[in-house]
């Protein structure tokens, strides 16, 4: 493309400069900084705050110390918890519920669809702290809304945040984030030419056949996008901290909370940075998969 540009190259560079500075300073720099810090014993105060020492792989070795890797409150345990959290709340929960909602309301526009969609979006855009507080009340052991309802039907009423903390956090996160996949899938469904479905109708395909043979293949790329994005976000979310603080006894300590506790409870930045590094490497894996998919999609589009 050698189209005459509307903006000259120097002006274009000038326009990019402010954003470039921010992005270099707050995204590129931290990326390399964290790598550097993760090999030191840097702390907030004391001698090692000013003159951190190079400790090699110590921080990493401590993270992956096999003798206590999976003990409660250690990195391995946190990774396991994160794995369950991501798998059940993002992949199973948000993606599946989002697809169910989009499919359920597909071609059923009206005030009912509008209302449900709006409430889901509100759950998605409300500030973290507020939804955490609302759920704290909702899940409260005696008198919380959920237990009042369960009690009314004569069902057991556990103290959710104490007895089933991980389940609670998972359901909370599903509730919180489903709107994204719902919106993504709705727009994907809306983009399927109606004639495709009409053809299937004429041929006499059942609802299930239509879903399996026409709709799912057509929105496959959207499904992959949704899965990877919500996996990335869920993996990095700090919101469970606001509901449980990672407890009780580390049962909901996902890696984001683990990083926070390592770095800021005792201000052991070296160790915190090492955890951050591992998180970034995992993020990088997801992001690369996503990018390669995005590029092949664009190219074929």
């Amino acid at each position, binding site marked *: *493309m050698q189209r005459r*540009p*509307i903006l000259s190259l120097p002006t*274009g560079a000038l*326009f*990019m400069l402010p*954003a470039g500075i*921010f*992005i270099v300073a*707050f*995204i*590129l720099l*931290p*990326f390399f*900084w*964290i790598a550097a*810090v993760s090999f030191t014993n840097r702390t907030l105060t004391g001698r090692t705050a000013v003159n951190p020492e190079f400790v090699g792989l110590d921080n990493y070795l401590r993270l992956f110390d096999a003798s206590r890797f999976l003990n409660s409150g250690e990195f391995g345990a946190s990774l396991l918890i994160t794995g369950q959290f991501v798998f059940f709340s993002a992949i199973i929960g948000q993606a599946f519920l989002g697809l169910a*909602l989009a499919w359920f309301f597909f071609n059923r526009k009206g005030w*009912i669809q509008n209302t*449900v969609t709006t*409430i889901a*979006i*509100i*759950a998605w*855009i409300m*500030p*973290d*702290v*507020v*939804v955490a*507080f*609302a759920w704290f*009340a*909702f899940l*409260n052991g005696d*008198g919380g809304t*959920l237990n009042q*309802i369960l009690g009314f039907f004569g069902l057991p009423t556990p103290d959710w945040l104490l007895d089933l903390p991980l389940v609670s956090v998972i359901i909370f996160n599903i509730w919180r984030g489903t709107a994204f996949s719902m919106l*993504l899938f709705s*727009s994907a469904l809306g983009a399927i030419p109606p004639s495709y479905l009409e053809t299937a109708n004429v041929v*006499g395909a059942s609802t299930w056949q239509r879903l399996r043979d026409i709709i799912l293949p057509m929105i496959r790329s959207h499904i992959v996008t949704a899965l990877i*994005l919500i996996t*990335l976000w869920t993996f*990095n*979310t*700090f*919101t469970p901290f606001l509901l449980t603080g990672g407890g009780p006894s580390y049962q909901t300590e996902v890696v*984001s909370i683990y*990083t*926070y506790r390592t770095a800021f409870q005792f201000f052991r*930045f070296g160790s915190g*940075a090492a955890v*951050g590094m591992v998180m*970034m490497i995992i*993020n*990088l894996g997801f992001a*690369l998969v*996503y*990018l390669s998919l995005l*590029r092949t999609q664009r190219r074929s589009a």
Partner: protein
Amino acid sequence: MTRATRTPPSQAQRAARFVLGRITFYVGSSLFAAFFVLPLLWLTVAPFSTLANLDLRLPDPWSLQNFERVFENGFAIRALVQNSMIQGFGAMLLVTLTATLAAYALSRANIPGTTAITYGLVLFSSVVTGTAAMVPIFLMIVQLGLIDTHLGVILVFTGGLLPAAVFIMRDFVDSIPRSYEESAMVAGASSWRVFRDIALPIVRPGMMVVGVWAFVQVWGGFLIPFILLRDADKMPASVAIYSFYTEAGTPLITLTAAYSLLYTLPVLLLYLFVNWRYGFRFFGGIKS
């Protein structure tokens, strides 16, 4: 039974199927609605109650006493109308302006490798998240002497939100026909005039959307101010509210509920505004 021999459904069968379909639809909708609404119910009534507990019951009597207590609380009000606003608007302005300039350049100047740049941005921003990078971000802000300042919070948010903002804005600018600017160039306008008179007004809806999005992100953001601010005088509402309810004995619950409602209100209003003005256009990944 083969399809060819299948008899068409009778009138009664069709009616029955229709009714069944309707019932499924209503029951399903109600269940979905219940799932999303129930967790919020308590929060919508508790602020008006004088009882300080987490039980769901209608207030008796309805009272605005909790809101009065919020307005009497200098710390809470300062967090909400001063600190959250400063940080929200500060980051919003910076993000919107710098993202617009960058996106415009990416779209309209022949910068080599714009696609690589854009994808690189997306890649890095999804790798270097606030949670993963909290240590270096904290250390950097310490180094810059910006701990406990609004500016520190604003800068970090701006850096974090920019890649997505540039991505969204670029999509928006790309969707605008170049003939607008070209016709202005032919009409005799200089580059700067083309940008000021034509491009900027035309991309304004995109800027509004990005601005609202950035504001909402900062308004609701917790982790960044939580680690960068220790001084209660600088805390935004997101951190202030959290401090109510951990140190809380029971009496603060109703206060927190009232405060939560006030704190959520701008987000809801902005959502309604964007929805009404531009339609809730769906940008992939607008909420990070």
